[in-house]
Structure formats: C-alpha cells, structure tokens
C-alpha cells in the first residue's frame, strides 16, 4: 500500500490580509505549480487548502494536486475565526482519512500548516482546538504554525503542536512567500523519507521549538 500524508494548508483570509490578496493568490498558485509538477510529492502528500475568516471555506478538497486544474482565487475579508476553522478541520480529517483508507493508502498522521497574520477574534476557539488535537482521537493532526503581521506569538505557541515559525520582522508578503516555501520544502523532504521532516530553515522566520512535543 502506498504511503500518504494528508496535508491541510489553512490560510488566514481575513480583512487584514486584504492588502496582500494578490500576493496570497500568486503564492498559492506557485504552490500548486510546484506540487502539480512534482509527481513524487503529489503522490505522497494529498493536499487540501482551507481559507478562513468569518467563515471557513474548503478551497481545494483533499486532492492529488496534479489532478487539480488550477488554484482557485481567494478573496479576503471578514474576521479571524479560529474556532470554526478547527471544527471544520476536524470534520475534514475524519472524512478524508476514511476516504484515503478506502483507496488503500497507508495514511500517516495528518499535518496542518496553519498560516495567520492575526489573533483569533472569537472567544471560544480553545475548546475547538483542544477537540482537534485531542490525543484520545486516533486521527488528531500535527499542527505547524507560521505567524506573521499581527499574529500573536502566545496564541500560536498553543496552536503549534509540532513546530512554530514566527516572522522575524519581515513584511507580510515576503513572509507569505517564505512560509509557503518552508511548507513545500517540508513536503519534499518528507516525501523522500516517508516521515515528517520539517524544514526549519525558513527565510524571514524564526524557528521556535514547540515546548510540548508530544510523543505519538
């Protein structure tokens, strides 16, 4: 059976990202090109792209990116609702892992790449997050977080369960590009070994080791 890493690219598309919308879409298109033209990575990492603001939108459902004709455009606006995002992620993971297993894949622990430029605007996000990463759920994901712009370090230190990257003062557009490159390098390295290999050298970001590294 083929190994498969369910991968979720979760992107903050709230109003604070509006000025950077064009760069966000160009960066996502570049990510799509790089995945779609690298069969080994697209075979290993099945990717879903999720944009969140006031609501959560599954931009690309779990797919072999080579089969996706092009990356849809994301239009930014609204609040930064973390709670709904984590709830939706939990639902997607349940559904996607079952679907991949039905296709005879050996499914690795899902990985969430969480990119945000702001703190949560909802009050109860922690409950949703705890449910998402609850170790009693067999399909809980690893979360790798990239924070830039107005992202709150303290919040991301809670959200990141595997690795945290905080922009080192670089502007939002460069940070976006750096985060997507880091994500891509992580997927490429992981596809070569069949295990999670986090690219820690990400341009424009400080790598922060996660304080509580859980043992799987």
């Amino acid at each position: 059976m083929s190994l498969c890493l369910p991968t979720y690219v979760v992107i903050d598309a709230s109003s604070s990202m509006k000025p950077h919308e064009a760069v966000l879409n160009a960066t996502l298109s570049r990510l799509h090109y790089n995945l779609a033209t690298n069969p080994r990575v697209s075979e290993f990492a099945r990717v879903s792209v999720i944009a969140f603001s006031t609501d959560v939108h599954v931009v690309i459902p779990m797919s072999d990116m080579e089969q996706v004709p092009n990356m849809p455009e994301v239009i930014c606006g609204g609040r930064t609702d973390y709670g709904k995002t984590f709830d939706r992620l939990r639902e997607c993971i349940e559904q996607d892992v079952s679907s991949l297993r039905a296709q005879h894949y050996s499914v690795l622990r899902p990985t969430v790449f969480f990119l945000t430029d702001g703190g949560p605007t909802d009050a109860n996000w922690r409950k949703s997050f705890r449910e998402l990463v609850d170790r009693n759920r067999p399909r809980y994901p690893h979360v790798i977080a990239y924070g830039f712009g107005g992202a709150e370090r303290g919040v991301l230190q809670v959200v990141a369960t595997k690795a945290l990257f905080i922009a080192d003062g670089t502007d939002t557009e460069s940070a976006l590009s750096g985060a997507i490159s880091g994500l891509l390098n992580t997927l490429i390295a992981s596809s070569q070994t069949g295990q999670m290999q986090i690219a820690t050298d990400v341009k424009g970001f400080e790598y922060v080791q996660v304080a509580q590294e859980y043992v799987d």
Partner: protein
Amino acid sequence: MTDLNPVADGSVPAVDPRGWPLPRAVGLGDLGPLAEPISEHNGQAVAVRPLTDHPGWLAKLYRPDPHPEDAQRIDLLISAPDTLPESERATLYAGTCWPAARIHGPGNPAVGCVIPMAPEHYRAELRRGKFSERRFLEIDWLAKSDESIRGVGLPRPAFGDRLEACRRLTELAAILEALGLVYSDWSFSNAFWSPDRRSVYLIDVDGCQPQKMPDIHQPNWADPLTPPGSDADHCTDRYRLGLLVAKCLTGQRDARAFHSVSLSPWPEQPALSEVLLDMLFATERERRPTAVQLNQALNNGPYLRTVPRPTRSALPPLPPLPASQTVPQPPAGTGAAETGTADTGTAKSGTVAEGTVVTRTTEKKKDPATTWNARWIWAFAFAVILLIVISIASNH
C-alpha cells in the same frame, strides 16, 4: 561476467574518454574555484558545485563524517569501467554520472568526487497554468498517465518511448550487476528521462557499493523480502528495478501497475510479464530474475528460467479507480504506438460567502470515446430521417 578486480596487466586507460583532464585522485585545492551550489543537503552530499575551470564537471562534496573505507570504494568505482568491454563502458559513461575522480582534502581522503554534469537534453520545460520552469526531467514522469504527461506540456509518450527508456534503464542495471555493484537507490528520483532521445541518465551512482550496502529507504520502494535494518543486495536491486520498470511501462504508480503487468498486454514482448511478476512477487528473493533477463525480455527475447518455476505471492488488491485509465499498449503487429488515456478532469463547485469568497474553475474533460459515440448516433439518426424524406418525396 565482469567484476571489480583490477585489470591484471595494468592496461588501464590513461585518459578518461569523457575528457576529465586531471588525475583520478585530486586535491580539493587543485580543482580551482567552485561555483555556487546547484544542490545542497541532498542525500549523502552536503553540496554539489560546478567546477569553474572545468565546464561540464561538478564537485560532489560529502557530509563531513568520513568513512575511511569510502576512499577505497570510490577508487574502485572510478576504475571499474576499465574492466568493461568498450561498448559497455561507453554505455555506462553516456548513461550515468559515473565518478571521474576522488577529491581528497587535509585529513580526509574522501571529501567527495568529481562527476559529469547531466547532459542538457535531459532538461525540459514543465508548464502548468501560467507557470513554467526548465528542469531536469525525472523518470518519475514516465510513471504517469499519458494525460498527466501532456498536462505539463510534454509530448505524450508512445508505448515505444516507454519501452525504450526501460530498455536503457535495464541495460545500465545489467552493467552494474555485472560489476558486482549494488545501487539500492532505484527509484523515480534517481534517473532523468529524455523524451526526445528516448534515453535515461542515472544519477547518484557514486553511492554504489560492492555486493551489499545499507538499504536506502524511500517510501513506496521498500522490498518486502528485505527486512528493515538489513543490507540491500543484488536481490533488493532486482525488486526495485522491476518495480520501476513496471510503473514506467504502465504509467501507473500503485497496485494497478501489477495488475496491468499480469494481463501481459505486450504481444511483442511475450516474456516480459512473467519476468516482471517473478521479480516483484517471487517468494524467494534469490529466485528473482536478473537485470539481464529483464533487459532480454524488454528486447522481445525469451525468459529462460530454471524449473521448478518460482512460487509467487498474490497480487495486492486492486485499489478503487479514481478515474478511467488504460495501460499504454502497442498496436497489433508493431512495437510502438500511441495509446492510453486518463480522465483527469476535476470538477469543483464554487462557493460564495461573507468574508472569504472563493472562485473556482470547473474543468471536466469529455471522454473522447463518448463524444464519438454520440456523434455517430446523431449521424445515423440524421441519415434515417433523410432516407424517409427522400422516400416520401420520390413517392410523390
């Protein structure tokens, strides 16, 4: 059978036929300036850097954890082609980045090695949407459907193109096997493919070792009969070579490839299916056919195997089909043809909501066969109506 023993009479070619001008063991400082790395932290190499004074040559610099035996091993590799017949030596040099010199430094006899740069014709423009990039084309692409290959702007390979690439691969594997070398790293990432010249180019061959070596793990390439932690040997190589050839010939990457092989869809290569199935599913690893046998089968030859035939494990279950796919096949009576389609159209519905608006592109490709059937039905109906009208008109 050739092996790595030095030529007894010392008749070693004095000059590298590929044009490497310096000795086979050279100090790092003697190479001249090194250009910016073209690759870093990849496998055993810490960097691969072009030699400014020697265009077309690269310094592959290893991680700084020297193994004293590495120097001897690299020297053996460099001199190994000397023992080959002229034609095989030419094949090996043309189809691999075979090391030309060992690089030594202060206190380290094996800092790295000098290898030739892969020829330019192994690069291709990969286009998708508005992006395009010229890169080395990994053989990974041959293990994709014709539709996928066309999807990045490459020409759709005919079955003959797939066959030729696999012939070249197995030719190289047979030479390595004859030299008693284990490669272990047979996979999609270690060979380039030239669609124009129907040739392949093997990289990372400087990692080869005599008889056995640590198994290089890559996901989806694990030999089921080589337990984790044990060394890779010629049997492991045979399994991985069979896997690579099965996938490249069928354009399928999962268990479908095995089922396609078992259908033996290649009438011009009557032994091919049996050889591949023995390589992949023989329950005794020592009974796996050799690279030479696979090469013979690919060249329309017979499969001469000892009796009793190797017992084989069952094929893995067929995964559900994500999209309609067919295996590339030759047309009746010829060795090469262009066939095979795969519907890769992905239809997605759009969503519009407060805050985040996502627009989507829907692109569902029509099945050409369905389209043609519909056209024929319409043409037939039109002809019947026309006949009725003519009949009525003639009666009047």
